[in-house]
């Protein structure tokens, strides 16, 4: 379980998050919805301890990671897999090397086990035949599936997705969303999805938090979003895609 308690964050004089509190339970898919540049991705980085808040606490499985040192954070981070918005694949490594990178780096596993897990993720992502290709030779949807595979390969409890369908064509988007759904059903994984596309929320999320002007203005099960009276939520429900 991941909890943000009264988290505040500023970059210089610019306030990014104001007193944000939210909880992500295990085995649930939680969406964080909001317009671009409002601080949604920042929330994911806070959850991973990649950035530290100015106030409040970040708690992962009961451990307060707010002021934890970088070296201690590595064990916490391995509980979560992160899929970055731009995929963040290592462009000088092949698909197989990208998938196996963190197993080789951080886990003392036999080579056979690493190869088995890499093959498993290649099959899961439907990328057979592309093992030795570089990321630049793949389509956007394929690269996203590699990024998901890389996040899954060390068997985390939770996956964090930063705009999982942004920049993808409708077919690829649909594939990625069904992949996310299957993770919960088949692998019992929890997920946090940061998105500005409201259809993605209704397609996969159990619950949703809406971030607006640095504050959480809604945090409940997805079905109740239709009942929300906040003018911003009413406007996004009619527009479907948030644009600022």
């Amino acid at each position, binding site marked *: 379980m991941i909890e943000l308690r009264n988290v505040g964050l500023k970059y210089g004089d610019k306030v990014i998050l104001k007193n944000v509190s939210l909880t992500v339970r295990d085995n649930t898919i939680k969406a964080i919805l909001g317009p671009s540049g409002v601080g949604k991705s920042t929330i994911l980085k806070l959850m991973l301890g990649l950035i530290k808040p100015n106030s409040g606490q970040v708690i992962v499985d009961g451990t307060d990671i707010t002021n934890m040192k970088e070296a201690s954070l590595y064990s916490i981070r391995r509980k979560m*897999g992160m899929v970055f918005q731009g995929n963040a694949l*290592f462009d000088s490594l092949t698909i197989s090397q990208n998938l196996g990178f963190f197993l080789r780096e951080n886990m003392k596993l036999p080579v056979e086990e690493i190869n088995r897990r890499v093959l498993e993720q290649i099959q899961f992502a439907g990328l057979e035949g592309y093992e030795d290709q570089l990321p630049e030779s793949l389509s956007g949807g394929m690269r996203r599936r590699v990024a998901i595979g890389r996040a899954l390969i060390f068997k985390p409890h939770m996956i964090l997705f930063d705009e999982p369908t942004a920049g993808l064509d409708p077919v690829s988007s649909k594939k990625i969303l069904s992949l996310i759904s299957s993770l919960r059903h088949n692998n019992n994984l929890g997920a946090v999805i940061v998105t500005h596309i409201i259809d993605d929320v209704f397609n996969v999320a159990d619950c949703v938090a809406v971030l607006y002007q640095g504050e959480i203005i809604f945090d409940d099960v997805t079905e109740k979003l239709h009942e929300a009276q906040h003018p911003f939520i009413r406007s996004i429900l009619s527009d479907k895609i948030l644009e600022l």
Partner: protein
Amino acid sequence: MLLTFARNQEKALALWLKNFVLTMQEFFLFSVRTFISFPKVKRYWRDVLDQATICGTDSIPIVLVSAISIGSLLAIEVGNLLEDFGAKTMLGRSTSLSVIRELGPLLMGLMLSARFGSRNGAELGAMQISEQIDALRAFGTDPVAKLVMPRLVAALIMFLPLTALSDYAGLQSAAYMAEHYHRLDPGIFWNAVYPRLAPKDFVVGFLKAPVFAIIITLVSSFNGFSARGGTAGVGRSTIKGIVVSSGLVLIANFYVSKIVLENM
């Protein structure tokens, strides 16, 4: 109006100073983290080898070109000057001192600042803006140990032979010019070189190699890690890395010479 202008300038200066101090603090911590990660060198030996090829073997042509160029020019100009005083036989002595103590290491440092430093800045900057560095951290790998420490170890190892190569090429080209341009017998040239060189001349030259390696690697890598604002940001951070490291190489060149020559 004048008062408002003065106040704005004061605010701008205060902000600049604050940012400068913060950057220095971050750079210091970044450098400490790099040195602290040295024990992990065994784990990243492949990365060290890759970087050694990039900053060492691949840099040989540019180091040779600059060393031959400066050695030849130095021999021609200094030879002309010495001829006026009838002291052309001292050409070997004067060129060898200039090449071994100062110009050989300095030009090598500037060339490597441009070549190795720009590569570091651009590569790490691109990794920063495409979130690859965040990805390393997110999955439990220390990006400084993985990306910066191997570069520094490789530079510390490779800059020494590159300095020796630069000195050798500079002296050989000076000897060639002495013989073919000034019609000076090679025996006279080399006799003025070998017996006159003292250990401190080599210490000055070779001590600069690790100092330049530390400056170039840390400054360019730090600027790469600090890149913000897309591809333009990578360009800015790369340029900043080259300018700052080249400036520091020039300053360090002066102080290393001064300190060693005053104390040996």
